Every structure is written in C-alpha cells, then in structure tokens.
C-alpha cells in the first residue's frame, strides 16, 4: 500500500485568533532553520512511493514559490509516485501572499491542487476572523490558479462565525461557486482551547452560534453545494466529480501516511505518532540526528476497528462491509448490531447491504453515531 506524505510549514504572516495548529509568525531566520531541518528529516525517512503529497500549515506560501517548488522537488525525489501514476500534490495558500508567477512555478513543480484559505467573502466576517484579504483578492487568486493550469482549485469557508447570518453565509457560498472552483470545504467554527476565541467565547458565549443555528447554516451549505453539482463526499468537504482530495480520502480510509515537520502526524504499521509541537526541540532533534520527540499509540482489536469506522462514516462511501471483514476480520453488522439497528431506526444511518453510511440527517450528529462504535478494549 502506498503512502500519503504531509509536510507542515508552520509560519504565518500573522496569527488567526481561532487557530490552534502548530504555527509561528514568520521570521526569515527561523523559517530558514526550519527548512533545513525539514530537508534533514526527509533525508532520514526511508524512501517510499507516495500517491499524494500535501503541503499544509501554517501558511505554506509564507515561503516564496521557488522555495516551495524546491521542497516539492525534493519530496518527489524521495517519495516518488508508483510507476505510471501522477501524484496528487496539494498546497494550502493564503490569498494575501500570492504573487504573480507563483502558480506557474507550482505547476512546474507538479502541484495539482490548490487550497485557498478564504473562510468568508463577507468583509465583517473576515475581520472577525482576524484575516486581511479582500474578496477581490480571492477572485484574482482563483483566476491565476486556473490560468496557471492547476487541476483542482479548492476554497475553505467557515460557518457559525459570530455575526454571520443565513444570508451572509449564502453569499459566501455563492461567491465561491461563481469563481468556478472545483472543491469547497466548509468548516463549522470550532472553539479551540487557549485561543483568543476561547477567551471570547468564555466572556460572551451568546455571540457564538448554538447548535440549532449551526445546523441551519450547515444545511444551507449542503443544499446550495449539492444543487450546484458538488458531491458531499465528506462531512466538511464538497467536490465536483473527479475533484475530491485523494490525500484526505486516505486519512478517512485509515490509510498510511508520513507526516514531516513540527507537530506533524504519521500513521504507519498500525502506529499513530505526532511530532513535538515545540519548534525549537524539533529543529534541534533533527539537526543533531536525534529522534524527534513524539507521542504515539497503537490501537488493536475493536478499538482500532472503532476508529476505522469513525473515520469511514465521515465519508459518503461509508463503511464497506466486505472491506472491513477482509481488513479487520470483523463482521461489522453482527458485532455492532444493536447500535446499527438503533441508528438506522432513528434515520441517522443507512445500511444498503454492502455498506453503512450516515444519512444526511446523520451527518449533523456524526459524533453521537460514531461514538456508538468506539470501544475501550
């Protein structure tokens, strides 16, 4: 089985108040030291074939396009695609930082997917989120990406933003569609601990959406994007046919992946591990040839199966019963019969004989449904 490769580029021009990823404000010296460490880490990895490469952040394009292209070249050399296969290479992008010619350099390096961090087309919401781009900038960037020949262009949008309304959310969705993008991710705002939004939420919980309002805007996303010909292929992801993210699909299929960089996560040989989120420690460990401090866990038995079901149920493909029987040696239908019966009856789950999938209604309460399949053995 092939691998997905994730590379974390943690620097940002500024820090967004809701974000809890491993990220730091851009400083050229740190960025250079980090890049060197990243190359060193790549060199330490066993050579393997990879079907997908994903550059995420942070803000990958906080590095200039030449640097990004160079890094991709190095990754492709170390993680070549299986013979006869074009790799999917994705890069996350902040629209404010795009310069003319960037995407041509990306395409030359093999980039096939561009994910633009937009969040909203409504100026008030953009401000609330602490972002600085204009809707106009986003339009230009999408056009440039298209013109440069990037095969799939994606936009991230955020709902349940304080101050958002059903109408303003509809506007963002429509603006994204009007740009002719191939893929849209819609994320409900999540309050992460120790972020400025967390403090705001504690201070003023009423400013934030309750689940009833959140369900309302989520439903608007589903209805609007499905009507525009997008497939709702994962809880937060919509794509035109042929444009789903293969790299992300690999996560939900419980496939293996190698994470490179600070705070990056890997899953290989049944072990999940996450590198330290401490930038200094990461750089020191890699450059001094020490193992990167990481936390890891290996799941076995029904704990592993439960996690696999939790992931699979996020997708429109769902839990393929035959695949699970072969891969995990478990008869899902039999082992989880009471939960399946209960949730099917409640209209949250459907069982067509070959697979189990969340219904549209089920996607709204996926936590409750997935929880029923987790076990502590």
């Amino acid at each position: 089985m092939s691998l997905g490769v994730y590379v974390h580029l943690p620097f940002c021009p500024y820090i967004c108040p809701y974000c809890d990823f491993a990220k730091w404000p851009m400083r050229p010296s740190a960025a250079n030291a980090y890049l060197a460490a990243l190359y060193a880490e790549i060199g330490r990895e066993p050579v393997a074939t990879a079907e997908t490469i994903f550059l995420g952040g942070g803000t990958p394009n906080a590095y200039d396009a030449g640097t990004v292209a160079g890094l991709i070249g190095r990754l492709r050399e170390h993680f070549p695609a299986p013979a006869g296969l074009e790799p999917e290479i994705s890069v996350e992008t902040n629209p404010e930082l795009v310069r003319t010619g960037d995407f041509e350099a990306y395409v030359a390096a093999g980039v096939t997917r561009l994910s633009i961090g937009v969040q909203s087309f409504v100026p008030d919401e953009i401000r609330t989120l602490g972002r600085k781009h204009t809707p106009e900038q986003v339009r230009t960037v999408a056009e440039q990406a298209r013109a440069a020949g990037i095969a799939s262009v994606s936009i991230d949008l955020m709902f349940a933003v304080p101050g958002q309304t059903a109408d303003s959310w509809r506007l963002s969705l429509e603006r994204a569609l009007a740009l002719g993008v191939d893929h849209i991710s819609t994320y409900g705002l999540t309050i992460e601990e120790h972020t400025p939004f967390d403090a705001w939420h504690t201070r003023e919980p009423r400013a934030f959406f309750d689940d009833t309002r959140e369900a309302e805007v989520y439903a608007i996303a589903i209805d609007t994007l499905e009507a525009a010909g997008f497939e709702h292929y994962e809880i937060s992801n919509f794509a035109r046919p042929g444009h789903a993210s293969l790299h992300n699909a690999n996560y939900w299929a419980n496939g293996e992946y190698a994470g490179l960089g600070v705070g990056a996560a890997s899953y290989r040989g049944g072990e999940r591990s996450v590198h330290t989120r401490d930038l200094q420690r990461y750089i020191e460990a890699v450059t001094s040839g020490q193992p990167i401090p990481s936390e890891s866990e290996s799941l076995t038995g029904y704990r592993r199966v439960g996690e696999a079901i939790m992931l699979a149920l996020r997708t429109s493909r769902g839990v393929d019963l035959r695949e699970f029987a072969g891969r995990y040696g478990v008869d899902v239908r039999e082992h989880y019969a009471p939960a399946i019966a209960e949730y099917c009856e409640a209209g949250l789950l459907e069982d067509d004989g070959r697979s189990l999938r969340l219904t549209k209604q089920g996607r709204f309460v996926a936590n409750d449904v997935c929880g029923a399949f987790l076990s502590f053995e």
Partner: protein
Amino acid sequence: MTVKPEHPHRTLVASNIRNFCIIAHIDHGKTTLSDRLLEMTRTIEMRDMEDQALDAMDLERERGITIRMHPVTLGYKARDGQTFELNLIDTPGHVDFSYEVSRSLAACEGALLIIDAAQGIEAQTLANYHLAVEHDLTIIPVINKIDLPAADPERVMNEIEELLVIERSECILASAKNGIGIEEILEAIVARIPPPKGHADHLRALVFNAQFDAYRGVVSYVRVSDGELRAGSKFMSMAHERVYECTEVGVFAPQMRAVKKLGMGSVGYVMANVKSLGDIDVGDTLTEAHNPAHVPLAGYRKAVPMVYCGLYPNEGDEYGDLRDALDKLKLNDAALIYEPETSVALGFGFRCGFLGLLHMEIVQERLERNYNLDLIATSPSVVFRVTKTDGEVEMIDNPAKLPPMTLIDTIEEPFVKATIITPPDYVGTIMDATIARRGTLQNMEYLHDGRVILTFEMPLIEVIVDFFDQLKSRTKGYASLDYEIIGYREGDLVKLEILLNGEWVDALSFIVAREKAPNRGRALAEKLKELIPRQMFEVPIQAAIGGKIVARETVSAIRKNVLAKCYGGDISRKRKLLEKQKVGKERMKRVGRVELPQEAFMAVLRLED
C-alpha cells in the same frame, strides 16, 4: 425453664461509680471537652484514642459529627482523696439517631450539658436537655468557650435560667480548649451525679450501643443495672428471647480490656459469638439465662426507619454486588433495612429504609466509596399510611406503589414537631419556608438575647425535602433545627407522576399535598429539563396527577454535533474526545429511549419554592 418465685431484692449502691454523658448542640465543643477529661484523668494518650475510636469513621469526621464512639472509663482521684470510676458514654450527635441517644442516656445517671458561651442555647441543646430530663438525669450545665471574644456567659446563664429552669449558680464556666474549668467539672460529676443503684441479683444489663467486629462478631456495649455479668455465663436477650454464652466481658480502659465480670452499675462490653447487629438490638436487656429477670429495662423499641429510597445499581450486573454490600453494611448497622424491588425504569434494586436523611446519605456514601458501587438513588420518601375503601390499611414506602386514588379512602403521613431557634431577623423568612411546607406555628418564645424559639408542626416529608438546606441558606446558618416525630395525620395527598417521551417513569413518582401538586409538577418538569441532556430526538417531559397532565416541558433535540475537521493530525485526539463523550453517556440510565443522568432521580429534592 422453671420460673422462680420473685425474691425481695437486695439493693446495692456502687458508690464509687458515676455514669454520665455529654450532650451538646453541634460544634459546641463536646469532642474537645471529652478529650480534656481524658487527658486530665491521664486515661490515655490522646493520639491513640483518636486513631482507635475514629478509625473507619471518616465519613462522620468529614461531616463534623461523631455518630458513635466507645464509652470510656476514667479513673479519677477526687479532691477528697477517694478514687472514682467515671464512665463517659458517648451519644450520637444527630436527630436521625435520637433513639440511640435515648438508650445512651438511659445508661447514665447524669449529663454534662455543654453550651457555647457565644452562641447560647440552640435547638439541639433544648432537644437534648428535654431528653435528659425525661430520663431523670442530673444535669450539669457547662458554659464552654468562655475564652472566645464573643463569649457572653451572663447572657447564656440567663437563657439557662429562663429556658432550662436551672439556677445560674449550677453553671460551670469552662474553656475545654484552654483547659479552664475541667477539674471543676470532674468534681461536679462526683459530687452531683448520684451513684448507680440496683439489685444485687437478677442480672439486667442495658445494651446501649454495639459495634460489629469482623473477627469477633458483635461487641455489645452494656450498662449493668442489676446483678452481674460474668464471662462464661449464659445470658438471654430479652427482646429476642435468645440465649448466648458470654465469651468475654470487659471494660474500656480506654482500649477494650477483658475482666472476669461486670458488676452492678458498671459499664463495659460483652461478646458472645453474636453474628449480626440485628440479633441483639440497641435497647435490648440482657439477663441471666438461668435466673432471668421478669421485666426488661424500659424503653426498648425496634429501630423504625423513617425515610425510604430506592437504591439501584447503575449497571444491572452490579445487582449482586449491591446486595452483598448491603448485607455487609447491615452487620454493622441494625437500623438499615432493605428489600428487593423492581422498577420499570431502573430494573432490579432495593427499597431501603433509614432512620433519617443523614443516615441515608451515610449508607449511600459507604456503598459508593467502600464498595465501589455506582448507584442511582431515587428521591427519599416517608411511609404513608393508606386506608383503602375496603378498609384495608397499607403502609406505602414507595410512591410508585400508591394504589389508584379511586381505591383510597384516606392517606396519613408522619408529622414532626420542629423546634427552630433563630435570630429575630429571620423569623419572617422561616415562617414563609415552613408555611410553604405545610407547617403550622405552635409556639413562639423570645429569649433574653432577642433570639426566638419557634415551634412548628409539619409533615416529615416536607422536612426531608431540602428543608435543612433552605433553613441554612435563608438564615445564613444562624438558625438551628431539631425535630421529633409526633405521629400520623391525615393529609390531602396525591401522587405526582412523570412521563418522559410519553412513558411513565415509576422511579420519579412522588406523593405531595394536593394544593401544591400543580406547582411542584411544573417545578419538577422544569428541573428535569435542566438536568436531562439534549438527545438526538425531542424529549417531552410531562407531569401528571391522576392521569391529568399538569405541566409540560420539552428538551429539544441536538441539532448538530459533529467535528468539523478530522485529518491526519486530528484522528487520535478526536477519537479520544468521542470516547470521553461516550463514557459520559454510558453513566446515564436509559429509560425507554431517553438517557437520564443519575441526578434526575433526586430532582425533586432540588426544587425551588
């Protein structure tokens, strides 16, 4: 058994023995004074006693009350040169245990009545005083904590004269903390408390307390009133008419020390291979098997549980564990009773009877802490006396089992006389709270210091349902309460029932005054709405009286509960989050399709007025 003709008894006086107890309102310094008496008489190193006497009593200690302690024998050489044996008999410090208090008092000739020099007479002081007077005890008033800046012994002496009709000259001023007045107290015990008097033969020994020891079985604490009790002799429990062979008698010195015999007037312990505390009750009279007394000592009664609740294992498969744990607790707690019962909502469990609320809480905590059980307790209830239209009388300890109203002629409920002592500012709010609980004011008396003694009669169920807490919060802790059961009275009562998602939840039923029922129903429905977490479907909550819905609330359905992002780095973290949510859910009790938290079953206790 041949009954011998009655002989004229020889009367003895145990002139160098004094049996006494210490009675006090909570926190007036009973424990400290006991410690000082022990120190003064060099009875023990204090540390030893605490370790020994209070071991396994952490619950009581946490609650600041000692429920049971060993009696202690103090050797005291008085100023006149004579040596005395002073037996200090502990009394439980809570109204739940008033029967046990009365038995301890019955084992004494005198009592030290401790009153806090700053706080003065409180409700329990009065209750204890009246009990002591009923038992004909010589009372030595001790005004304690005279070292406090707020101490006002003059005022307290006025109260004592006024309320207890004791001359102020009899009061001893003391500070147990600083060792002031201790010797005076010891001298007063010797001088004022009469020595025990009794007959030389026809053993009668009062069991005033008992403890269960895992190795030796039941250790009964006795006061020998007549005759003597010898190791190796056979004695009979008069309440159960059962004969035992006495394997050991001894005294508390302060550790248990075996002796050959306990003579008339003395206090000690008896062991006789008694397996369970239920076999020889507190209040029982022990007599010689071969030469039995004809009449037991007065005052014995079976402990009567006043408060009942259902206890259910949260997990059905813990039912056996719960039964075993109750069996074990029962060995050491004769007052606890339990019977298997089944609830539609909660499955198999037990209906348990307790002396009062505190007793109930202690048993529940023991089960959870010492036996590691995860329990659901239903709201406490009292025992209702129901007379049906066919004349049959039923005692109902579970509201769910109340017969249909059409078959009921009358319902009677236990009433209490409640005594509340409070600063005058709070009289209004106390009146409000008691009247809202169907209390009627019987008497109102002003003390010298301006405080007021209020006497109410009110239904026990109203006292049980959060009255203590209400009183405490309404009076900022300044009022004190004591109560005693005064009998059954007819009430206009109805059963309030709760339906969740259209299904009757038997464990949430309760019995309430008709005029209050609609309000209570509304309040309970609102409270349940707060307590029941939102589920994936709407949960209607209905309160009904006699099939008629009086209140309705709805717990709205969860509309969205899904993690937005689940990529490579999120997977472990998100799985753990969902696992945690699942654990929370599994702790809930499923009734029909509805998940209920354990607190929901006690919701009726937490209703606002």
